[in-house]
Each structure stands twice: as C-alpha cells, then as structure tokens.
C-alpha cells in the first residue's frame, strides 16, 4: 500500500495505482477524455494534468504512478491553469455545433467545457474540417468533432481484439479512420459510441431521433445470449429509442455486444414480419383480427378439444429459451395441467440422452467474473466470438495476461485470442478428439485411464491441448453452443466433466440463450414419459403451444418443425412478432409483449437471477405473456393459476431461491459414452449467425445490414472445393438426403476440416436443409 495526499486528504492506495485511480477512489473527480479504466493509458488528451509536489511540470494524473508520500493538488492554480489551457486547445478546432450534435446533453467535452472553458474563444482562424468515414451500418461519424483521444482505436485493438481503427496523418491533420475501404465490423463495435467523449461517433440507428434529456431510463436485462448483460432501456413515448449498457463488473463490465445494443430496433418493427399487435384467429383459412376474449376462448377451446379427444400427450409445448422464467413456468404449468409432459425449451438441442442422467441444471460451472481467473481454458464446440462475444472478450484479456486458451472445434474462425493449442475436427470427430484429450490428461496426471478410452490413440493436437491444460493450476472446460447442439452432446458433456475432474478444474456450458438455465428452473423440460423438443416434432402432435419461438428458425431441424406444425390440428402461438410461416401453421396468434414491455426474470448462465420491469407500455393490444398464460390457465380450469403479478409467478417458480438458483450441476451419472464416428458424405457444420439467433435480432434492420448478417454460403476448405470441382463463388446445390435442396454460393474457408461444408442455420435460406447436424450432398448447380 502507498500513502498519497490529494488536495490535503490522505489515503492508502494499492501499489501501482495511478493518481487518477487514487483520486477516483476518494471521490475526487479529475477531468479527463482519453483515460478509460478498461483501456490502456494513452496520456494524450492532457486534460487530467495535476500538480505534483516537487514536479516542475504538471503531470497527467492518468499516467503518473503514485509514489509513497506523494502530494497531489488537483485544483491548485498550476493544475487549473493547465486544465483550462488544454480545454482551450480542445475547443479551438471543435465545431461547437452542440445544438445539432447528437451527443449534445451527454457530451463529456460539453460538460467539461462548462467547468474549464471560457465563454468566448480567442481563436479567430479557420477551423479544421475532417472528412467523415463510413464505419458501417451501426456507427455514424462526424469526424470534425473528433478530439483524437484514441479511445475508439484502443478499444478495437485491446478489447475487440483487432485494430480496426487507427490514427493516420500527423499533427493537426491527424484523423481517426478505419483501413481504407473497410468498415468497423467487430461484434462489439457499438461500444466505441459510448467511449467517444464527443459527438464524433454516434449511433446510426438512433441519431437525430431523440435528445438524451427526453428519454426515460429503465434498467433491464439482455434477452439474447446466456450472459444476461445489464441494460439501460431508454424510451420516449413508450417506444424504446436506444439501449445502453448498465455497468456490471460481474457480467458485462461496461460493454454490450452490438446485438444487445441495436436489437431494440426489432421491438419497433412493423409490417408482415414485424410486431404482432392484435390477437388473430384463423377461420376457414382466413385470418381475422379479433378481441382478446375471442382469441383466448378460441385458443382454450382448441387445446381443450385436443386434450379431450386425443389426450394431453397429443399437445406439445415449444418454449423459446429467450422467454422469461415466468412465461416458461406458466406455460409448463398450463401444459401439465392439460395432461401433457411434452414441454421443452432446448429447441436447438438434438441429443437428449443426458436427460435422466443429469445431476442438475447445466450451467457455466463458475461465476462469469471468474472466467478471467482461469489460467488454462479449453473451449469445446463454440463459435465463441459470435455466440458469446463478451465471454470471448474476457478470455482475450486473460490470454494477454498469460492464460493459455485452447480450442476444440469444427471451424477455425479467428477468435482474435492468442491460442495455446487447437484441434479442428469434423463434427463427428469432436467426441473422439475430446476423448483423446481426456486420455492424454489422465496419462499426464497419472490418473487411471477410463476403460472406454483405453483403445484410442492420442493425436498430436489433443496431446498439445492436454499438455497446456495440465500445466496450469486453475483450469476450465467450456462447452459452447455447437457442442450443446451436437448429436453426441451428452457424450461431450460426460467427457468434459471427466476432464475437469481429472484436472481438478471447472466444467461448464456457455449458455446459448438468456434463459438456458432458467428453463430448467422453470421446469420447462419434459417430465416422465414426455417428449423433448426434437421428439415432439419427430412424432407430430395434434396441437402445439409455441411461446416466443419461431420453430422453423429456432429448432434444430427447422424443416421438420415446419412440417409438424403445419400438419397439426391446432397451433397456439404466443409471440411478439408475426411471420408468414406463423400465419401458415398457426390457428391462433396471441400478441404478447417482448421483454421490453413486460416484467420478468432471466436466469443467466452462471445461475444469477435477474428480474426486470417493463421499460415501455405494451404496444397496441399486446399483453405480457404471463398475463395471457394466466388467463388461459383460468379458462382451462387448471389449478394454481391465481397469480396477481409476475412477482407471484416468480416466487412460485423460484420456490425461495433468490440471487442465485440452486441445483446447478454439470455432472452426468451412469452414462454410456457414444464415440461412434462413421459418416459418409460431407458433414454439415452449422453455425447460428449472431444476428439470426432469435426472433428479436432477426428483425433489427441495422444489424441485418452488418457484415455478420451476410447471406449464408456453403463454406469449405480448398481440398473440399477441389473435390467438388468448384471454385469460390460458384453456385452449388446442397441437399440433406431429402428432396429439398437449396442453392448457395461457395466460399473458401481454410479453417474448416476436410469433407465438411459450413452452412449457417437459423436462416430462411437454409431452413429447407433440415437438421443442423447432417450429411450433405453438394453438387455444382
């Protein structure tokens, strides 16, 4: 500890602290622009100059380390003169166009100019003008306003992992710009808007639509990936205008992914594929907008009829993993009340053989904040950067700090993380390679090798990963979405669990969706004799209740989902959105609120219970889904539906659990490994593109223009292209055994294993291909 005196007040700070950190610790504000606690120190804005005893010149508080006994004066004449001098320089070339600047009212330069600026400038020369840049569909530029603090540059280089922005030219001609002809395409790009202390980088979707002081603010929780980022929803006239991060060091730190930041546009979507605002029923093949009473009557009769005629088991419930805990809880309660155990929210999962062997609810295995403390990490089956951008970010930082990150996957996408080792194998080989790693680790650790693994040979890649893992003291094995969607997911789970126990490390799942843990807590999984998500589509039901999902895009086999739903006598859909497919298969559409218009709860991947209130009033005639389900329960005379608030529902669903849910356990018992790996043909590697993962983000127009939203292609490596006799860009017909084929362009992807073809799932263009995991026939079109 070091002792420092700031403005006469003494305090103890940790070794290595800077003056600005010490000052902030004691609540003294030092003006600054370039300094940001999560970024490297640039010391270039010079706004934080303070007086340090014995130093002849004012020192930058952001870059000056505290020494024992140091005396600092932040408001002395010398300090204030230096700060005012810098402010004058900052303003001479700044356009001072605050009235037409989107940053007006929330601008650091504007705020500090009030404190440190003069009312008139002595600069009477011509001001600098800097050409604007095209950074893509999300970030808008007014580069003349830029004060060259380089926060955005440091963000792309350090946090996002790739220096997409840089400062070109010298002196007054210095300009922040992307590479020539390039845009900023990182999945975290929106954060540079928050970081920009002036109006140089502003939100393209939001700009000129509202002033910051016109907006109401509500805390909320991201409905997308399993992280559960904390949000500030900003609304005007009950319309979400903007989403900003709510800082939470344990979850999203101060960042948001672009998906979380810009998906709100989908909340305001209109048209045939937009928000569903009125209850609708299909009568005689025609859709009619009706009153809620009529629609609820219709829905309850339809379900009651099927239950009466065919039994409760003839009904299947498909719940979105992005639905709230309350919605899932009521939906499963309703279905069970109707006598059905066919309930599932694990829509993209294809292997359910761990059911009945699971020791508890699958979860991250550790706290999110502890990810950065792991010194050895193996990520299995994950498009990490796109599926979990902020977890990737944490691993990126820990890799820089010396942690060794290894990857076992079927694609070698650049994670922008320095990897210690990697094994890239076809999907069918993943269990075998993971088994090799387990075996190698057992051998290196001197543990007994499991009988099932005795006969396998350890490859060099597996050996390298094993060696990295055993060299650490705090290891973690993380199974990504791809591993969870894998047809041998349970085997991967058993192997991962075994690996972690030999290593004495942690083992967990990277939660795919906002409620991937919450679904288990809400009991939205099949009970005894019930059918899981895949089975209830494979064995078509008479009726389905769909809550918040678009099964054709959200299920592991979209084609089959579509077929079974179309065949069913009655499909009751509770959804915030409509779509053509929905109009085709549904009998009744009940417009329910998206997360922004209802109170609810998400249990994130670390088991943290995060509840939120509605940020806006329900749009049109939409109603919170928990209310709709509650009324349906009443209409169907299901017992125990006397809830008066979503808190009541939550209390019952959680049964006394509060901040963190209990029963989290990734272990599997008495499970037989399935290491078979015989495949004939091209294996499909199916990713869920970041901006197609759920129904909300699919409807966010700006995100849909981003580079990550490109039309799906058939990606393959050079050897596979050669084998097929096609070149990059050629059109190929891709089928999956059935009659349906889709025609796609080929694209070279050197990171794919031989004999695999990567075709994105969750996209209208590829639904016809059926299961995410499949063998494809590919031929030149």
């Amino acid at each position, binding site marked *: 500890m070091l002792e420092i005196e700031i403005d006469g007040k003494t305090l103890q700070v940790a070794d290595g602290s800077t003056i600005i950190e010490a000052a902030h610790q004691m609540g003294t504000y030092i003006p600054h622009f370039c300094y940001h606690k999560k970024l490297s120190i640039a010391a270039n804005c*010079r706004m934080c*100059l303070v007086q340090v005893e014995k130093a*002849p010149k004012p020192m930058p508080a952001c870059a000056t380390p505290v020494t024992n006994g140091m005396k600092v004066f932040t408001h002395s004449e010398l300090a204030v003169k230096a700060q005012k001098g*810098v402010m004058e320089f900052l303003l001479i070339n700044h356009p001072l166009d605050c009235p037409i600047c989107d940053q007006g009212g929330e601008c650091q330069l504007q705020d500090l100019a009030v404190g440190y600026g003069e009312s008139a400038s002595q600069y009477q020369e011509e001001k600098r003008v800097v050409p604007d840049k095209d950074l893509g569909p999300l970030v808008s530029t007014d580069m003349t306003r830029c004060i060259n603090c380089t926060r955005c540059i440091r963000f792309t280089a350090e946090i996002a992992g790739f220096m997409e922005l840089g400062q070109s030219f010298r*002196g007054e*001609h210095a300009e922040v710009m992307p590479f020539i002809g390039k845009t900023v395409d990182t999945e975290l790009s929106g954060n540079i808007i928050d970081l920009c202390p002036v109006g140089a980088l502003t939100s393209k979707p939001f700009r000129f639509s509202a002033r910051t002081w016109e907006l109401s603010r509500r805390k909320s929780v991201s409905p997308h990936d399993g992280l559960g980022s904390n949000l500030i929803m900003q609304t005007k006239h009950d319309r979400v205008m903007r989403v900003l991060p709510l800082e939470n060091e344990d979850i999203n730190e101060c960042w948001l992914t672009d998906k979380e930041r810009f998906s709100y546009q989908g909340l305001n979507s209109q048209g045939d594929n937009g928000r569903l605002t009125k209850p609708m029923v299909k009568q005689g093949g025609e859709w009619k907008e009706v009153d809620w009473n009529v629609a609820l009557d219709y829905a309850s009769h339809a379900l009651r009829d099927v239950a009466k005629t065919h039994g409760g088991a003839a009904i299947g419930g498909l719940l979105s993993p992005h639905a709230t805990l309350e919605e899932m809880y009521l939906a499963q309660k309703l279905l069970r009340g109707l006598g059905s155990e066919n309930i599932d929210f694990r829509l993209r999962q294809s292997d359910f053989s761990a059911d009945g062997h699971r020791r508890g609810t699958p979860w991250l295995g550790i706290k999110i904040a502890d990810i950065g403390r792991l010194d050895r990490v193996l990520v299995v089956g994950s498009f990490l950067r796109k599926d979990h951008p902020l977890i990737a970010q944490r691993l990126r930082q820990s890799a820089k700090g010396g942690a060794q990150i290894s990857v076992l996957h079927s694609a070698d996408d650049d994670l922008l993380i320095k990897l210690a080792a990697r094994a890239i194998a076809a999907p069918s080989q993943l269990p075998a390679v993971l088994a090799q790693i387990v075996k190698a680790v057992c051998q290196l650790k001197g543990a007994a090798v499991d009988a099932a693994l005795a006969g396998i040979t350890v490859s060099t890649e597996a050996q390298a990963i094993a060696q990295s893992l055993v060299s650490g003291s705090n290891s973690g094995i993380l199974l990504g979405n791809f591993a969870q969607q894998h047809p041998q997911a349970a085997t991967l789970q058993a192997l991962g669990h075994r690996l972690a126990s030999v290593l004495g490390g942690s083992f967990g799942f990277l939660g795919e969706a906002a409620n991937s843990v919450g679904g288990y807590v809400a009991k939205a999984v099949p009970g005894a004799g019930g059918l899981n998500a895949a089975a209830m589509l494979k064995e078509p039901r008479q009726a389905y209740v769909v809550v918040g999902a678009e099964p054709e895009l959200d299920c592991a086999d979209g084609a089959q989902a579509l077929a079974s739903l179309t065949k069913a006598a009655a499909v009751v859909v509770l959804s915030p959105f409509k779509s053509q497919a929905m109009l085709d298969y549904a009998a009744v559409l009940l417009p329910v609120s998206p997360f922004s218009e209802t109170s609810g709860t998400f249990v994130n991947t670390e088991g943290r219970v995060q509840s939120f209130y509605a940020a806006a009033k329900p749009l049109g005639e939409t109603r919170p889904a928990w209310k709709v389900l509650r009324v349906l329960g009443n209409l169907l005379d299901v017992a125990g539906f006397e809830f008066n608030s979503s808190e009541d529902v939550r209390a019952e669903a959680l049964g006394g659990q509060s901040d963190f849910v209990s029963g989290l356990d990734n272990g599997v018992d008495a499970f037989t490994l399935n290491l078979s790996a015989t495949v004939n043909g091209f294996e499909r590697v199916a990713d869920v593109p970041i901006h197609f993962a759920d129904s909300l983000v699919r409807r966010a127009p700006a995100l849909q223009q981003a580079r990550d939203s490109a039309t799906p292609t058939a990606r393959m490596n050079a050897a596979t292209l050669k084998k097929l006799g096609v070149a990059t860009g050629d059109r190929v017909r891709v089928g999956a055994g059935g009659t349906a084929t889709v025609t796609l362009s080929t694209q070279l992807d050197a990171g794919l294993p031989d004999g695999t073809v990567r075709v994105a799932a969750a996209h209208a263009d590829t639904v016809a291909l059926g299961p995410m995991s499949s063998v494809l026939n590919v031929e030149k079109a």
Partner: protein
Amino acid sequence: MALIDTISPLLTTGWSKGDAGWSLKDYEARGGYAQLKRILSSKMTQDELIAEVKKSSLRGRGGAGFPTGLKWSFMPKAAPEKYVVCNTDEGEPGTFKDRDLLRYDPHSTIEGMIIAGYAVGAKRGYNYIHGEIFDIYQRFEEALDQARAAGYLGERILGSDFSFDLFAHHGWGAYICGEETGLLESIEGKKGQPRYKPPFPANFGLYGKPTTINNTETFAAIPFILGMGGEAYLNLGKPNNGGTKLFSVSGHVNRPGNYEVPMGTPFAKLLEMAGGMRGGRKLKAVIPGGSSAPVLPADVMMECTMDYDSIAKAGSMLGSGAVIVMDETVCMVKALERLSYFYFEESCGQCTPCREGSGWLYRVVHRIEHGQGRPEDLDLLNRVTDNMMGKTICALADAAAFPVRSFIKHFKSEFEYHIEHKKCLVDPEVQRAGSGFFRASSVARVA
C-alpha cells in the same frame, strides 16, 4: 571537399579523404576497431567500460546532453534481451552532422555501437536513419556488410564470447521519429509517436525490452574516447562538457559546414572557422542548437562559448549543435513563420496542446507576416506557448514554443513594426539581396 576545418580533428579524422575514406580498410588503417579488439581480448568488464565512458563526461550529442555513461548504467544487468539503438533521424532543421559522420566514417559509429552493446549486454542493435538521406542508409548497409564479413559483427565476435549484430532501418521522413520513443515505435512498425515516460527505454524500450538509445555522434565518439582514455577526452573540453563536438554551421556564413571543435570553444572562433559573415554583413541572430533552440541575438551570442553550460546560461540550448547564423537581411517574423510551419507540420498529433497549439502559433505568425497581425497577437502567442510548454508527452510542443517566445523576446520591435505597418522592418529588397547572396555563394562553395 575541404569542408572540414577543425582545431584538433578527432571524430572527423577520417573525413579528410572525403568520399574516398569511408570503407573498412581505411577505418582500420586509421586505427579503427582497435578498441573493440582491445576490449574483447582484455576481457574488459562492463563496469570498467562504463566507468571509462563516465570519466570522459561524454554527454549525449543528440540534443538533450544526458551523460552517456550514466545512461548505459541504467540498463538492467539481468535482462536476457536488450537492444542498442542509434538515432540517426537527425530531423532538426540546421543539423547535418550525423549525415556526414555516416557518409565519411560509418565504421566509427558501428564500432561505437558494438562497444555499447558489449557495455550494456545487448546482442542486437539498430541504426534508424532518416529517410531523406537514402544514399547514406545504403552506405551504412554496405559498411555493415564489410564489418560482418570482417567478423566485427555476428556470432562470437573475433572469437570471443560476445555476439552482436547490427541492422540499419530507414525512416520515412517524420521529425518526431527523432524522439527516442517515437523512433522505437517506428522501428516496431507503428506510427511514430512518442511514448509516455516513465517507463524509460532503459526498462521498456524496443519491443518492450531494455534499450539504450544514443545519437550517432555519441556512438561515433566512443572508439576515440577509449583510444585516448576518458580523462584525456574530458580534458579536450571543459569540466562537465567533455571532448569535442561537431557543429553544423549553416546560414549566412562564408563556409557553411560541419566543424569539430573542443567543447568550450568561443562562438566567435567557430564563426571565424566558418569563414565569417557573408559579404561582411552584420550578424543579427544565431540559433545555437538546432531550430527548436531559442534564438539568441548577436551580442549575447558573441559572448558565448560552445558548450552545454554556457549556452544554457545565455538562455538557449546547445541541442544538436546546429548553429543557424542569420545576418541583418533576415526578417525575424518571416524566419519564425518558417520555423512555426515546420513544427505545425511535424507535430505527431497525439497530445492536445501540441496538435492544436502548433497550428495556432503558425497561423498567427503567418497572419502577422502577411500584414494581418493584431496588437494583441504577441500576448496571444506568448499565452499559447505558455499553455503548450511542459504540457505534453514529448518535447515537441516546447520545441515549437521556444522559437516563438525567443523571437518575440529578442526581436519584439520587428513584430510590433509588422503589426503596426503591415510590412517588414527589413526592406524586402534587402531580404532578397541577402537570400540571393546566399544562393550564389553556396554554388561557389561547391565549385
């Protein structure tokens, strides 16, 4: 080629043959590489070597004048990977000594760097040569090849345990890359802009490893110092200002060029060596240490001796030893405008006060020169420089401010005249005559 006129040639000994005396055999014939051989064969310790350099009181010849031996002693002993870097960026207007050092005697710098590598325990060195003198860069590469072929560079030099290799790196024409940490960034392939210090290069230098950076002239002096002994070298100059120094004399003198004189030589003597004032005109002002050093009026300058302490006492800096001599035909406003433009263009743009202030200074001076000055402009200029000096990561803001402040301080009446009368105090015809004379004389010199 008789550009050199020294009292006691040391570093410039090898220059007498001009372009014909630079190669390895010439250098060896002059006793070159003898010191390296002596150090390696006698297994001189690093501490002994550094002590000898300290004894010489050699101060960095790049401009800051930091004691070289002390700088070397800062290098952490235990670090496995260290670098020695030579700064031949020489971007300061008026300075051209390092260019000629590498042109006429590149091996003295090479030997100096190898010895420095030995002293600080580095196995690798770089010489950063500014991009405008590409022929010099090529010559240095040639000299490196010669040294490598002769076994002075590479693994186990001359059969000893010491290995060292040296590489040339040319810049692309940025003044700021002469700042040592900007130079390191540039070698690393990044945008050349200074780093915040601390940490200093001795702890966190090239590629984050401990690094010693010295000026070309500093390295070139090392073999000579070791040849004659630190004590003897110090005695060439005066206490705390050891040895000889190269001065690049330019401007309105009859024989502009590089002159090596002992530290402490009177300026009047140096001026005399440079052939005196052209056309017998009156000396008006001198910038004694490169364009960033404050200008001194003739009477002050004529009293100075050429060493760090005397010039500092007079209110300027010896800097890189670039002596810019101005006669009475010079309009000081125009001269300052040119200097301010240089710093405006060369600021790296990193720190606010320099990025914004250098342009402000230039624009105001430009305005005054073009008859649009305002009475309050001189106060404004002083205030702007005040807000720039000492407020930035590196000293470029100070370098931009010093000329402005000193020109106004010493030649205020000329500025006031400009503002009041919208024209130069020095008649434009006289100015033209002065510069015309400069051109004619320059041609004559080369012939």
